[in-house]
């Protein structure tokens, strides 16, 4: 039935026509394509929205929109391939855009770009998050082809890919994501990827044509690449449903927009198993441990949502709650590289600090690091620049920053992890050791080129170790408190209360709101 071209039906039939047009749009790309997805266990665009939003809260924008650049496509472009609208999630408003891959591969066109722009503008102006369910083949062809096509479609919205972090953005990679769905994912504050999906500039077919080799989609932009090597995705899941649940969870930590404080939830005690932090962290300075246990011993049970767990693993970043209040955790993890921060860890930290500062989330830094990874590999990847990005981000921050030195804090990393005045409060555990360089190496540096016997070296090392203990830091008030490990949670909860931003109703200055989303 030629639904869309059937314009100008009898005026008396307008209501019936509305009905028919709605039904036609809701059938998307047709039963055959929808059935194939069902068989593969993949949700379609409308089902994704349905799973995501509070029941009955969804109101669609542009249900009757169709292709407008190529009129011949009007009958084959229900909702013009991108389903968009407004809804509530957890009782709070959101804007949502779901790519309908069953309609022309959810390719970007003149009409659907207007739909995205509208929902984005409303979400920003009225102050609520924007969520993308990404699955698109890129720009629609032939619409975009030729000089006229380019002039008509692309570049007419000068704000299309500007990210100012006024409201939170989240994205789920749920299939092939090239072009705009890749771009929006990279601009988002949180990106979850379903295994089997691809995030890339262009499709494997195009890439193969361009370089004359067969390119595999997993190699080009699969979950392993993005979770381990690029860090472009925050979490990896097995199913659409899990991805959608994670986006809901991410939003639950954030305010609706940058001019309000994050929401509070019911306080929960931390996991009993890890409550004895002194037992989790060995005082043997050579023994490593998994800092996740410390975090779980400090935050409300089950509240840690870790970002990029397989990328820059020597640093853990994640949202969590302490006594029901959202915090951003930045913690060195000795289990990976002894906690020494590499380029990936710096990039991860920078992005996370910017996120927290942009949305009024206090930062908790848990410190146990021998420093930054040194050596040729890091230098080739611009390590000094990455370290300074991280440092600048921390110093630009206007949300409360609390730093707890658990064990080691050395050199420049002492500053990057909040040492000195780089956080609002510094607390240290009694086993903390603070210095410019690990005594093992420092002994050799200061005796370089001189004759020194083993006894003298040993004496020097012991002196340096004594000088590195926590009391020096406490005496000159560079640590405001020395706390027992088991008091860490209580200390943090109280200090978060002390440093609540009362004069601005919990709202920071967001000086990094327009910083890049990738480093």
């Amino acid at each position, binding site marked *: 039935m030629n639904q869309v071209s059937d314009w100008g039906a009898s005026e008396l039939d307008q209501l019936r026509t509305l009905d028919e047009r709605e039904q036609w749009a809701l059938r998307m790309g047709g039963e055959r394509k929808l059935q194939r997805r069902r068989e593969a266990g993949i949700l379609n665009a409308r089902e994704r929205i349905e799973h995501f939003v509070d029941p009955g809260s969804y109101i669609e924008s542009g249900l009757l929109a169709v292709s407008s650049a190529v009129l011949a496509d009007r009958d084959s472009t229900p909702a013009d391939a991108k389903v968009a609208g407004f809804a509530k999630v957890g009782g709070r408003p959101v804007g949502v855009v779901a790519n309908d891959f069953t309609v022309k591969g959810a390719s970007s066109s003149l009409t659907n770009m207007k739909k995205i722009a509208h929902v984005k503008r409303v979400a920003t102006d009225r102050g609520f998050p924007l969520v993308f369910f990404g699955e698109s083949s890129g720009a629609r062809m032939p619409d975009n082809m030729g000089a006229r096509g380019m002039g008509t479609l692309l570049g007419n919205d000068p704000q299309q890919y500007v990210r100012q972090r006024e409201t939170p953005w989240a994205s789920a990679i749920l299939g092939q994501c090239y072009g705009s769905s890749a771009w929006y994912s990279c601009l988002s504050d949180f990106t979850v990827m379903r295994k089997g999906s691809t995030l890339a500039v262009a499709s494997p077919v195009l890439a193969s044509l361009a370089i004359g080799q067969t390119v595999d989609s997993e190699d080009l932009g699969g979950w392993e690449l993005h979770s381990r090597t690029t860090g472009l995705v925050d979490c990896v899941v097995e199913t659409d449903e899990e991805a959608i649940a994670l986006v809901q969870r991410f939003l639950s930590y954030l305010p609706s927009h940058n001019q309000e404080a994050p929401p509070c939830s019911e306080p929960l005690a931390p996991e009993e198993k890890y409550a004895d932090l002194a037992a989790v962290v060995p005082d043997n300075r050579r023994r490593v*441990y998994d800092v996740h246990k410390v975090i779980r011993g400090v935050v409300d049970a089950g509240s840690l949502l870790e970002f990029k767990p397989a990328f820059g693993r020597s640093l853990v970043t994640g949202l969590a709650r302490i006594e029901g209040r959202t915090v951003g955790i930045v913690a060195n993890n000795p289990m990976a*590289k002894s906690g020494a921060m590499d380029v990936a860890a710096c990039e991860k930290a920078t992005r996370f600090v910017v996120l927290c500062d942009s949305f009024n989330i206090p930062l908790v830094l848990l410190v146990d690091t021998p420093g930054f990874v040194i050596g040729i590999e890091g230098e080739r990847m611009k390590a000094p620049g990455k370290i300074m990005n991280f440092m600048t981000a921390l110093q630009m921050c206007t949300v409360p920053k609390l730093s707890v030195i658990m064990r080691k804090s050395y050199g420049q990393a002492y500053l990057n992890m909040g040492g000195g005045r780089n956080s609002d409060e510094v607390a240290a555990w009694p086993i903390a050791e603070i210095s410019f360089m690990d005594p093992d190496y420092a002994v050799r540096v200061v005796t370089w080129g001189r004759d020194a016997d083993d006894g003298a070296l040993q004496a020097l090392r012991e002196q340096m170790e004594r000088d590195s203990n926590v009391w020096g830091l406490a005496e000159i008030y560079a640590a405001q408190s020395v706390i027992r490990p088991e008091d860490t949670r209580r200390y943090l909860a109280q200090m978060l209360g002390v440093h609540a931003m009362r004069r601005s109703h919990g709202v920071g200055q967001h000086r990094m709101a327009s910083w890049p989303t990738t480093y």
Partner: protein
Amino acid sequence: MAKVELGSPVTGTVWKVERATGDSVGEGDVILILESMKMEIPLESSADGVIVELRVKPGEAVEEEQILCVLET
């Protein structure tokens, strides 16, 4: 009964083996300790179970992600 393989968290050498084949272990128990970059890195059990295979001896060099131990849970 399911088999659980425990891979090395780092590239390094095996320093101490704390448990033996046939031992029952709980989640989080230390099975062996590796040494890498002057640090001691414990290999912890990821589940409750019985050690059915210990593939390395003290002094042996191991690669990151190499399977060192197999549990039956």
